[in-house]
Structure formats: structure tokens, C-alpha cells
């Protein structure tokens, strides 16, 4: 049905005077159960449906969208195209492709999940935290279930439909005791059976209890191990834009002139994996209809690629990497904006160290489980600032207790040259409001400046 609407829309847009046309129809169902003060405070379900239409007259492109299709929408897209000057960078809509099916990105059970079951799952997260230890205090967080469907058609004959599902839960738990403390955990999956709500609660509660009695950390330079959730926060906010073809073109990326150069410690491999089986942000094709793929970004410490949509790929004289997505804050592929490049499933390759071995090998340092509000305060340089929300002291190769909050004001291009250990403990993690997931092991950095 969605594809039929898209095909009808391009046909009518051509009849309205366009040389070329593209229609993107999307439907998202987002269910959220929010927990605060250790109880469910709200349950929400968003149904969002609409169509985005691009009409091209030569290189003059007009974009419009609405919640339903009508002839008037086609006419408006064409009239916008008529009224504007051409964009010499417009390289047409893509030719038809045959994207391969991506495994484990849609789960019928999740798509049909009823509100009562979603509330039960949220309750299981919560109860697992509250039952973990008598020192556990208030818990807050949310469970989200996203079902996204889309169809795309263009006048070159490209046509496709895609469906994905995902579930993710987050809990922040406080513990009562000296100094007060908090712990947090996040888990996500593309299937219902792959999601264990109790695990979220237990992990968050365990971290909270272990974080009691925090000790002050003297300012200085430390060896710092970032656990997967902390790496995800850092790399989503401070690495993601640097490998984005748009920010590279705009020179906001600190990697703007670095393609082909060694930018990181030897042996570091990072890629964007848009068609990863079971990947939370995997899709069969991107929101321009291009097949998704695995795109190497850093190989052996050398910068080898960026993620592109067709527009920025054209400007850079490269091919699209299948990363042209239409995203806003609300989860799901969104008809109301034009495509732009985004990372999807960012993957940092694991190393040989077990987590415990990495700690033992560290001697003196810090282990940070969660960092917070991590933004590139000078983006073109890769300077960032962040604070810890859950951290521990390492002494003589052992975790000896919790650490009080620290601030890190550092430079990521420098830090990725100072990675001295990559663990094998790969986990998925997704920062607050993120539109991508990071698959990463714990990483150890040397000489991190702590204040």
C-alpha cells in the first residue's frame, strides 16, 4: 500500500511538470514506557505517517511533505522547483538497485507488542533493580519499542519497501549510602527474544551500589579505561560528525584533510555497518533507496573513509555509502526531511584483552562506566568536554573503589593516538537521543587530563 502511494505520487508529480520525482512514505509506531521515582509515570504511543516528495526540473529540486498524499502536494513540489535556481550539485535520483536482505532487523513479535506487555517489560527492568540490593534507591528510565516502515519510489524505476523493529531499555538507579551514587545500564535488540529487561535493572543497580563511598580524584593525567557506554557517548558525539561526509565537506570535521593519513593508534579499526545482521540501525536500503553496507572508516589506524549520502558523495566525487537518512529527534525514518548522511551502527573492532586483564594491566588509573553531556566544544579541533557519572579508581591493577565526579577536557584526535588497550568485551550502547548505535569494547587511553 505504501509503495503504491509512493508510485502514484511520482506519477502525478511527473504529470504536474517534473522531469524527475521521488516519493518517500514512512510510518512509525513508537511506544515508550517511562519510569521515574521507581514507578511507571507515563506510557505513550506515537503513530506518525506521511509522505515526502522531491520534484526535479533539471537541477532545480523542490521538496515538500504532508501527512497524506494529494495532487496538490505534487503541484507544490513542482512549483517550489520552478521558483528556485538550479543546484549544480544535484546529481539526479538513483537508478534501481537490488539491495540484499539484511538478517534479523524485523521481528513480528515486537511489531505486534501490546501496551500491557511493554509495561510489564518496563516493570521487570524496574523490579530487577529494586530487588538487587537493599541500598538501591530511586530508579528512572524508559523502555522504547520502535516499528518503522517505509517505501520509496523514483522515476528511474527504483522501488522498495523496508521494515525494521527495535526495543531498548535504559535505567538509571541511585543507591543510598555514603556519598550517594548512581549506576546506569542500557540494552537494545531488534527482537523481543533478544531483550532481557532484568539484565538492565541488575546491571544498573550493581553499578549504583558499587559506586557508593566515592573518593576524590586529584587533578592530573591518568590512564583511563572507558567502558562501552562511555565509549559510545564519546564516539557518538565527538567522532560521528568527524566521519560524516557533510561535516567533512563543511570542514567542521577535524578529519577534513586527513583522508589516507594515520590518525589513530596502529591496529585501530572502526567502521560503519549499515547492513549488520541484527544491527539496531540496520536497514535494507537507505532513505534514498541506496543499498546499505559496511564502510571502513579507520583501518589499522589510517583514515580510509567517510559516510555519505548521494549529495555529499557527489560533492566529494565518491559513491554513496548508503547512509542517506531522513531523521529527526523522534525515532524512525521520517518523511518530513530530505536525506542527509548519518552513521548507523558504528563498530569498533575488539582487541585481545579481557576486561579484567585490561584493568590488571593498567596499574594506576580510572575506570569510567558512564560519561555525560559530551560535546565537541571546538568541533573543528576535536576538543571535547565531559563529566563522569559513574567511575572507579584503579590501584595496582585492581578496582579499589568508586571515584567522585571528574571533568575531562580533552582532544579526541590526540586521544585516539593514545589508545593503549582494546578489550574484547564488545557491547552495543546508545547515548541519549542518539540516532545510531555504537558497538564497542572498552578502550584504554593514556595521559587523559582530569580536572
Amino acid at each position, binding site marked *: 500500500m505504501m509503495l503504491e502511494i509512493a508510485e502514484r505520487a511520482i506519477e502525478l508529480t511527473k504529470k504536474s511538470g517534473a522531469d524527475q520525482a521521488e516519493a518517500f512514505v514512512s510510518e512509525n509506531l513508537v511506544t515508550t514506557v517511562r519510569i521515574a521515582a521507581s514507578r511507571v509515570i507515563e506510557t*505513550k504511543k506515537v*503513530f506518525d505517517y506521511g509522505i515526502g516528495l522531491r520534484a526535479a526540473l533539471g537541477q532545480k529540486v*523542490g521538496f515538500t511533505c504532508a*501527512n497524506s498524499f494529494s495532487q496538490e502536494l505534487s503541484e507544490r513540489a513542482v512549483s517550489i522547483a520552478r521558483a*528556485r535556481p538550479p543546484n549544480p550539485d544535484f546529481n539526479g535520483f538513483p537508478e534501481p538497485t537490488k539491495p540484499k536482505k539484511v538478517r534479523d532487523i524485523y521481528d513480528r513479535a515486537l511489531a505486534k507488542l501490546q501496551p500491557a506487555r511493554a509495561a510489564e517489560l518496563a516493570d521487570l527492568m524496574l523490579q530487577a533493580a529494586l530487588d538487587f540490593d537493599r541500598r538501591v534507591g530511586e530508579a528512572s528510565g524508559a523502555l522504547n519499542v520502535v516499528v518503522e516502515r517505509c517505501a520509496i519510489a523514483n522515476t528511474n524505476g527504483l522501488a522498495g519497501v523496508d521494515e525494521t523493529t527495535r526495543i531498548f531499555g535504559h535505567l538509571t538507579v541511585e543507591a543510598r549510602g555514603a556519598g550517594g551514587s548512581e549506576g546506569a545500564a542500557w540494552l537494545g535488540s531488534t527482537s523481543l527474544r533478544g531483550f532481557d529487561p532484568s539484565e538492565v535493572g541488575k546491571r544498573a543497580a550493581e553499578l549504583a551500589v558499587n559506586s557508593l563511598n566515592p573518593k576524590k580524584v586529584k587533578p592530573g593525567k591518568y590512564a583511563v579505561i572507558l567502558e562501552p557506554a562511555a565509549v559510545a557517548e564519546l564516539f557518538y558525539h565527538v567522532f560521528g560528525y568527524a566521519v560524516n561526509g557533510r561535516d567533512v565537506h563543511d570542514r567542521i570535521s577535524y578529519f577534513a584533510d586527513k583522508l589516507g593519513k594515520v590518525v589513530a593508534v596502529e591496529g585501530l579499526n572502526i567502521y560503519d555497518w549499515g547492513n549488520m545482521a541484527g544491527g539496531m540501525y540496520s536497514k535494507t536500503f537507505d532513505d534514498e533507496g541506496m543499498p546499505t553496507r559496511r564502510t571502513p572508516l579507520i583501518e589499522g589506524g589510517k583514515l580510509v573513509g567517510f559516510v555519505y549520502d548521494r549529495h555529499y558523495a557527489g560533492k566529494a566525487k565518491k559513491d554513496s555509502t548508503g547512509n542517506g537518512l531522513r531523521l529527526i529527534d523522534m525515532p524512525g525514518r521520517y518523511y*518530513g526531511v530530505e536525506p542527509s548522511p548519518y552513521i548507523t551502527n558504528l563498530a569498533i573492532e575488539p582487541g585481545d584483552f579481557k576486561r579484567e586483564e585490561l584493568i590488571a594491566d593498567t596499574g594506576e588509573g580510572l575506570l569510567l562506566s558512564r560519561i555525560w*553531556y559530551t*560535546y565537541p566544544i571546538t568541533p573543528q579541533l576535536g*576538543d571535547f568536554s565531559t563529566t563522569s557519572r559513574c567511575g572507579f579508581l584503579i590501584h595496582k591493577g585492581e578496582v579499589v573503589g568508586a571515584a567522585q565526579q571528574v571533568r575531562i577536557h580533552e582532544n579526541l584526535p590526540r586521544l585516539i593516538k593514545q589508545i593503549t588497550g582494546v578489550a574484547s568485551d564488545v557491547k552495543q550502547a546508545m547515548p541519549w537521543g542518539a540516532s545510531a548505535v555504537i558497538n564497542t569494547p572498552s578502550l584504554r587511553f593514556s595521559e587523559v587530563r582530569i580536572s
Partner: protein
Amino acid sequence: MEIAEHAVELAMKLGAAYADVRTENSRNETILVKDGKVEKVASELQQGMGIRVLFGTWGFASTTELVKPAVDRGVKTAVSMAKAVKHRAGGKMAEAEVAEARAHAGGKIDPFEVDLSEKIDMCLEADRRARVDGHVKRTSASIAAQKLQKLFLSSEGARIQSDRVITYAGVFALAKKGAVTEYFEDLAGGTGGFEIVRRFDMPTRAEDVGKHAVALASAKAMPKHRLPVVMDQDFVALLTHEIIGHPSEADRVLGREAAWAGKAWWAGMIGRRIGSKLLNAVDDPRVEGALGYYEYDDEGVPARRKQLIREGKLLGHMHSRETAAEFKVEPNGNMRAQSFKYLPLIRMSNTFIEPGEHKLEELFDVKEGVYLKGAKIPSIDSRRYNFQISAKEAFLIRRGELVGPFRDASIMGIAPEFFSSIDAVGRDFEMRPIPNCGKGDPMQTLHVGNGGPHLRGLALVAGVG
């Protein structure tokens, strides 16, 4: 109107203790010119309904289909969402005026009536003017506008129709000199029409932005100092947003946002001194022309000015009807949602530091200090206690004279220490637009206004990381 009335009636018939419905109709237009090319001309139409029901806990559903079968499904979904929760013990709301009103904030010149080609030409001209010399490598200019019509109905009888226009213009330039890349940008935006764009004077601002980018690319990096800092209104706007606006949201104060947005370090401190006697802060949705302007919030509560801090004492917070009941205060109209798709949350409107008595030259009357102009990017801890904010540009102050500019400066501080150190507050008040304030799960990005005068305090000035 009828379909909204039907939704409220159905929700109550299905057993809700309270229900409200927001229907919206919006039109957006965006024009973006980048590096001399028209990159984007987009026109968006949106409509839909958000249905909120109370069964001890909140249930919510939204739909983009405004026809009876879809609305019925939406109401039933909202009810089933709320009923899905086993332990439903909250949701007590403070009494609020049941308003029947029409609110209008349209501005003077309808931005959608201005010819599209004129707007495109304005962006092209501004983009061209930003390229002041060969060191400017990237430029952009944009104009955006939104026209929003809303209807709020509640089971208590509230019936509020409102319409609002907001308009933006922005210019950007990035310059490269040797190995140094720097950028500068400026943005005007508020509740109002195309007069906002005309007042902004895009070509002149674009040229200015280009010159600043080039000057910064030639400037030295700011060394580390612990000195008095003088901040301009733009910097004060972001500072106020981050360390006064956010911790004043009562849901954060109560720990309800602990999972993501965080808490507030001053929880439980109402009536206590948290800063210098020169510090006065307010949240006021009714600042005309400001980006956070509205007359009724998304619970139908009349918008009102509230004093958050007076002479350094914490006086109060921003509330929903629910948190107002918990604090035993009157609701003060800060519940807002990004759109009908979202359940409202407590959000700041226009939060600002009030002007003081100092003349500008008095603020610069220090032996040595740092002047921070324009705010760039913040990093704040989850209690809004420990902060770092970068500036667009900075100058050293030596015996009242400015030396610079310097690039890549930021300040680090501890909120109560910084508030206590404020020793001069200017008279030159300005509001600034902040179009991307984030909170909630799923994240909701909202328009807010922030502002203040020049002010002086003490903080650690940090250079490049």
C-alpha cells in the same frame, strides 16, 4: 474543533479521570544556501492530534490522521496505554484556571507571503557577502519560518485556540589560515514575522561573520587563566539556559529526569542564598517577540512571569500542574511539547538574568580579565553544577583595554561558586533565540529564549584541550 471535542468525550466515557487533546496544523519553510548554491528549498505541512488521559498514570497517543476512525483508535490506544500500568498512584494535578481563549502572535509581515525568490536572493546575497576574502572556505545563509495553529481542549472545559509565527535567519562562515580553521555564525529568531529577517540585515551580518571567522583563524589560542570574566549577552544567554533554566525545571528538581537530562543541585534549597545579591533571574513566556513566547502552555495554564532567583536567593521553579501540586504552589505554565506527537514536559520559556545597574565601561574596569563574546557549545554535568561553555571569541582585558581576539576559549566553573562571584551586572539586556533545547525520552527539541545583560564573575578560562 468537533473531532477534538469528540476525542475528549470518548476518553472520559472510557473512564479517564482527566483528558486533554491538542490538535495542530503547521506549515514550515526552509531555504538554505551553501557556498553560493541553493542547497535546500523545502515546504512542510503537518497536522495531527495528541491525546493525553489520566488513569492515575498518564497515557498518551498521537495520530497524524484527523478522521474519526483514526481518532477513536488514538483515544483507545491512549487509554489502553495508561491502563497497561499495574500500579497507578500518581497524577494529582493542582487546580488551574479553566481558560476559554484565543491567542495570536503573528508578527507584522507574514513570512509565507514574502516571495520565495526574494528569500532565495537574500540568502544568496548574504552567502556571497560572507566570503570576505580567500581565506573563507565555507559559507551558508538560511531563512526559516513556521506557522502553527493549535487547539487545546480539556475535560475540565478549557478551550484555547492559538496561532503563532516564528521566523529565523542565520549566517555562517568558516575560514582557514595555515593549519587553523575557525568558524563564526550569527542567528536571529523569534516569535514574529519576516520583520525579524529584515531587522537582522543579513548581508551586513554575513560580512561581519566572514570578517570574524578570518580574524579568528589568524588569532592565537586563549591561554589558561583564572581571572575575572566579562560575558556578553549572547554568552550569558547560553549560560543562563544551562545553569539557571534547566535546574529550575521542577521535574528535574524532583529527580524525575534523573535517567537522562539529570537533576538539579539546588533541590530543597528554595529560600536559600545560591549566589551574589546582584543575581536576579526570571522565566517569562510573555516576553513579546522572544522565541519562547506563548500565552498558554500545553496544559492550558496561562503563561506567567516567575521570579526564579531574587538578589541571589532561590525563589521558585517552573512547574506542571502535577509538580505544582507536589510543591503546593500554583501552576505557572511551563508544560510544553515539541508538537502534538509528544507528551508535554516542564520546559523553560524565556529564561534570563535581569539587567543590573552597571555601565558597560564599569564591567571592563579590571586590572586583568577575559572578555567572552558569543556562546558556542556547552558541557554541563547532570546536576547542572559543574559547567564548561566555549565562546565564539575572546579578548584579554588589560586595564580596561581589549587585547585580541583569541580563539578557542571556554570557561569552567562550579555553578554556586560562579553565581557568588558575580560582582557586576550591566544594564544592556538582550534576548537571544535558542532553537534546539533538548529534553525527554524520546527527545523533544524546543524553541526557547534566553538572555541577560553583560555580567562579570570569576571562572577558570581554559584554552585548547
